[in-house]
Structure formats: C-alpha cells, structure tokens
C-alpha cells in the first residue's frame, strides 16, 4: 500500500484499463447518457425542437438494447460461465462488476425501456411539451437501475439507488396542477430521502468496521472476523450496519415495513409512472439485493475460494433470516391489503408489493443454498431472473390496460370497468390473461416463474439448510397464491358479470386499434412465455451462473 508509485504509471495503467476493458463493457449505459444529453440539447436548438422527443428516446433505448444484447451474446455458454463465475470482470477499478447477471439485467431493463416508450407515446402521457423532461428523467432513472444491477462497491450501491430514486420523485409529480400527484411526489421524496439517509449511515458503519467499501474485500474481512472471533461489540455494530443497509434496499423493494409510499404514489401518480416504478424499479431493486447479499455472503469467484465460503456462513445465515422474514411478511400483507381495494392502480400497487415478496423468497432460497450447494443456488438466482423477465410483460401490460381504459372511461376505479365485456370483449380477454398470469396459474408465464421460485425453496428444504425458514416461506407462498386468487378474479368478475353503469362515457375499446395493438403486444408474450419458456429460461440460467 505504501510503496512509492510513479504517477505516470498509475495514470497510464488506469487509462488503458478504462479505455480497453471498462468502457467497451459500459456501452448500454453510455448510450443512455448520450441520449439524455441529446434530449436536453433538442430543447435548446430551434430546428431540433421539431423532433419528437419520444422518437429520440426510443432510438437511444433501442441502441442501448442492441449493445446490451451484443454483450449478452458475447457471454460464454452456461457450463463455461459457471466455472468462471459468469465471466466476472471488475470494471472501473472495482466500482462495478460485469458478469452474466449484469448482462441479463441490462437486457431486461433496456428491453423494458423500448416497450415502455412505445406505450407512453401511444397512451399520451407525457404530452408533446413535457416529453423531453419525462424521457430524460426516465432514461436517467434507468441508467441508475443499470448501475444498481452491476454495483460492486458500497459507494456505487448508494449512488445507483439515488440515481434511480431522485428522477422517480420528479416523475411521480409530473402531472401538473393535480393535488394527488403533488401529494404522491412529496410522500415519495420524503420517505425515499429518509431511507437513503439511513442506508448511508449503515454503509458508513460497515465501511468503517471493515476498512473497505469494495464488496469482495468486505467479504474477505468479514471472513477474517468470523475466523478470528470479532472483538467485543463489533458484531453488534456490523449487524446494525447491515440492517440499516437493508432499510434502503427494502424501501426500493417496497418491502414491509417500508412499503407505505408504494400504494399512495401509485394511486396519485399517472398509471404510466406507476408502470415504470412497478417494473423497472422493482427489477433493479431485486438485482441490487442479490448483488449486496452475494457480495457480502460469498467470496468473489464463487465456491472456488474454499475456506472463506465456510467462514462466511454466519453472514449468509443472517442475510437469509432477514430476507426470508421480510419476504413472508411483505407477501402476506400485500395480498391481504389488496383484497379491499376499489382503485385499480392501488390494487396493482399492493400486487406489486406481494410480488416483491415472492421475488425475495427466491433470493432467500439462493442465499441458503449458496454455501452447501452452489449449483442449486445458481438455479435459484436463475429462477428469480426468469421471474423478472416475465414480470416485465405481466405488469407493464396490466398498467397499460389501466392507462388506456383511463383514456376512454375517465376513471381508474374498478367499479367503472363493470360490464366491459359487452362492448370490448378483446380487452377483457387480455386483462384476463394478464391477471391470471399474475396469480400464477398455468399455462401462463406467471405460473412458470412462480413454479421455479417455489421449486428452489423445495430444493433448500430437501437439503435441510435453514429448513424451518424455507418451510415457512413455502407455506406462506402457497397460502398467498390462494388469497391472491380472490382479488384478481374479482376484477374479472366486475368486468364480465356486472351490468355496465347507465352513465358510461366513452366508446368501446377494440383490440384492433393502436392502443389495442400495444396491449396485445404485451399480453401475447405472457401467453407465449407460459408455453415456450425454454429460451428465456436458458438466458436466466446463464444470468444465475455467476452464483455457482
């Protein structure tokens, strides 16, 4: 550490590392950044102002998706990836990490972004005037989410969470002059900033105790603590720091007890904003949870590090206990609270909370399996990755239906949907596909995703690791699926059996229209992925390979 270093060598080493290794693996994020600059420039130059900002944003997102896809293609096949920990490469001097999981998540996020921009363009929020602001905020938040998926350093964990959150606060209040929107924005900003502050304090405690912020180095230090016996009191400080870090992550995941913002923000903000927060933000939060839990609980390079894996068992046990308990409570509360809702956006908010619970169950199973059976842990991470892939289509389709129905019926109340089947049967069928997939019934994508997550729980039970907790999760998951049946089907019942209100405004909503095409394009993959799921499954398994 104290060896004299020639500044010239230092600079040229950093420069060549940045230019030859880091930046080529950072192309999707660079594309997003360039698009944001372009969007802002377009507002200033008179000729470019004629350009529709949605098209600029769509072009940027498509390029980002293309680069993310190229990175995904360049990955080694599964068997090889598993032996090299998913082709793990640390970039930007260890601040970020590139591996199969990063590549997969970036594909998901960029793909979501493309679909999302098309959807918002068709649904009409934002209008032409707000477009540049809206899309630069959306792209900025997505940039932060890509960083969340590849964070390898606690500074990046904090920065990425903030980069994803701060634009989201502004997005929540993007509807001008609406009481509900401004209330949603202020609630989101206050809760979010508070959670971020507490997370930062936790990070400072962890970093100070371990003398480093680099996640793999922290794992090494934790292993040393576990082996040598930690000095008095330091375990308590480490646990406290870990719990405070978990507060920030739980806020992003909208896990109980940090979920209060979620229903209010979804109800107050536009359905388009809800779609963004519900899908992209949730996927990134789950990815970050996996990154942090794996970074601290397993040595970099997976099981190959031998002794350290055993030394870190207490860390993993702590993580499993926290994540599993939170998952069980989140899932149950989300489903129970959704039962009495009358507003569709609020119902979907509680459904989002419940799904965060299912996703966290998968993460808990992966952490439990990581020590004794890394290959099974990789499958569990793959199951979560698959869940995220299907979740994009399910939830985006659900919010798209809410947004398009709002444009026609001027209402987001479930009661306003009564008897829609008589005038617009196509949209009711699409809604049925999406909601039944959210319940998790065959033959739809949601069933496969849920089945994979539950089967990783069964695997953990059969291996006998953290048996009680995993058994609890499996039971809670099963019971919750039954509970969720009632409130999703109630929406369908209102749509089909209830008589339409006398004073219905707005015309029928045929599937053969621009907005109908968007709904179809989102709902058909839900059906197709439920039957032909092997392609996405292979990609998700490759993503999980970093954990083996």
């Amino acid at each position: 550490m104290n060896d004299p270093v020639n500044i010239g060598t230092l600079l040229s080493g950093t420069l060549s590392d940045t230019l030859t290794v880091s930046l080529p693996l950072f192309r999707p994020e660079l594309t997003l950044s360039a698009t944001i600059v372009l969007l802002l420039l377009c507002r200033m130059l008179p000729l470019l102002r004629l350009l529709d900002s949605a098209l600029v944003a769509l072009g940027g997102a498509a390029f980002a998706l293309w680069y993310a896809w190229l990175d995904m293609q360049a990955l080694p096949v599964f068997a090889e990836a598993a032996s090299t920990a998913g082709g793990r490469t640390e970039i930007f001097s260890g601040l970020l990490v590139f591996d199969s999981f990063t590549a997969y998540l970036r594909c998901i996020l960029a793909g979501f972004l493309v679909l999302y921009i098309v959807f918002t363009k068709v649904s009409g929020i934002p209008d032409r005037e707000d477009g540049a602001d809206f899309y630069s905020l959306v792209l900025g938040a997505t940039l932060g989410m890509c960083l969340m998926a590849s964070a390898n350093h606690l500074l990046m964990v904090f920065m990425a969470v903030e980069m994803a959150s701060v634009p989201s606060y502004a997005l929540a209040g993007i509807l001008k002059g609406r009481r509900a929107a401004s209330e949603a924005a202020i609630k989101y900003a206050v809760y979010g900033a508070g959670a971020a502050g507490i997370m930062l304090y936790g990070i400072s405690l962890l970093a100070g105790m371990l003398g480093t912020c680099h996640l793999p180095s922290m794992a090494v230090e934790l292993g040393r603590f576990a082996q040598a016996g930690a000095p008095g009191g330091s375990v308590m400080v480490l646990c406290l720091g870990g719990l405070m870090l978990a507060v920030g992550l739980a806020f992003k995941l909208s896990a109980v007890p940090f979920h209060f913002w979620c229903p209010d923000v979804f109800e107050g903000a536009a359905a388009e904003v809800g779609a963004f927060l519900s899908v992209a933000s949730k996927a990134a939060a789950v990815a970050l949870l996996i990154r942090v839990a794996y970074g601290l609980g397993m040595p970099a390079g997976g099981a190959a590090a031998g002794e350290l894996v055993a030394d870190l068992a207490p860390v993993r046990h702590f993580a499993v206990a926290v994540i599993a308990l939170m998952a069980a409570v989140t899932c149950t509360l989300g489903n129970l609270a959704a039962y009495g809702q009358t507003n569709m956006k609020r119902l979907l908010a509680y459904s989002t909370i419940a799904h965060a619970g299912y996703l966290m169950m998968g993460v808990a199973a992966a952490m439990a399996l990581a020590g004794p059976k890394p290959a099974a842990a990789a499958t569990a991470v793959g199951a979560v990755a698959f869940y995220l892939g299907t979740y994009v289509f399910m939830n985006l389709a659900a919010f798209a239906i809410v947004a398009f129905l709002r444009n026609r019926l001027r209402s987001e109340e479930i009661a306003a949907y009564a008897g829609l089947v008589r005038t617009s049967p196509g949209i009711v069928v699409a809604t049925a596909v999406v909601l039944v997939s959210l319940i998790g019934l065959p033959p739809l994508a949601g069933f496969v995703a849920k089945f994979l997550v539950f089967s990783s729980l069964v695997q953990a039970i059969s291996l006998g690791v953290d048996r009680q907790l995993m058994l609890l999760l499996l039971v809670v998951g099963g019971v919750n699926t039954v509970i969720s049946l009632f409130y999703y089907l109630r929406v369908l019942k209102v749509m089909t059996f209830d008589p339409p209100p006398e004073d219905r405004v707005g015309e029928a909503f045929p599937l053969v229209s621009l907005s109908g095409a968007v709904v179809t394009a989102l709902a058909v993959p839900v059906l197709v992925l439920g039957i032909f799921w092997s392609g996405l499954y292979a990609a998700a398994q490759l993503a999980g390979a970093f954990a083996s």
Partner: protein
Amino acid sequence: MIGNFVQPCLAGLLSDPVSVTHYLVVGAILFVSGVACMAMKRNALGVLMGIELVLNGANVNFVAFASPWLQGAGARSLGLDGQVIALFVILLAAAEAAVALAITLNFYNNHSTVDIDRADDLKG
C-alpha cells in the same frame, strides 16, 4: 444504572486524545437529531433539514474513518475511499435537496401549505 455505564465513557472521551470515537459520537448525535427531526417535524422543510442532518452525520463518519492519523496503530483506515464518498454524498445531497424543494413548492401550489400531515388525501 445507565449513569454507571455512561459516566466512564464520557470521562474517557474527555480525557483521551482525540480519536475516531470522538468523531463517531458527533456523527451519531447528528444522525439521531436528523432522525428525530424527520419523525417529529410537520413542516416539509423541517423534514428535509432532518434528512440533511442524517446525511452529514454519515459524512462525518466517513471522513473520520478515512483518516489514517485518527486510527489506532495497525488498524485499517478507509483511506481516500472515505473522503471520495463524502464528496459524492455532498453532491448528491445538493441534487436531492433541489428536487425535494421543487416538489415541496409544487405541493404548496396545490395545497397552499407545506404541512406534511395535510398530505392525507391518499390512503387505504
């Protein structure tokens, strides 16, 4: 009981040479005041000030952990990492405050108040 525990600690703090612990105490006081401020203030601006206090409490920790002179012999310090994190946090706190103030102004325009407790239209 608590006095028996606190008194030697306080005495130690006052007589020992300045070390990381002293800075941590300052950071902890800032953090606790910030959290109390967030929990109890009804004025949105007061809540935002509480958030600033929390962030600065963490910053004091980072800078203290970063200093190689404050640590006991042989202990690892965070080194430059801590100071760089502190700089980034200052920057982020400014960005967050700007957005949060804009949102508060928007709230004021719609509700004619900055009382957080009046934000109760959405519930259930």
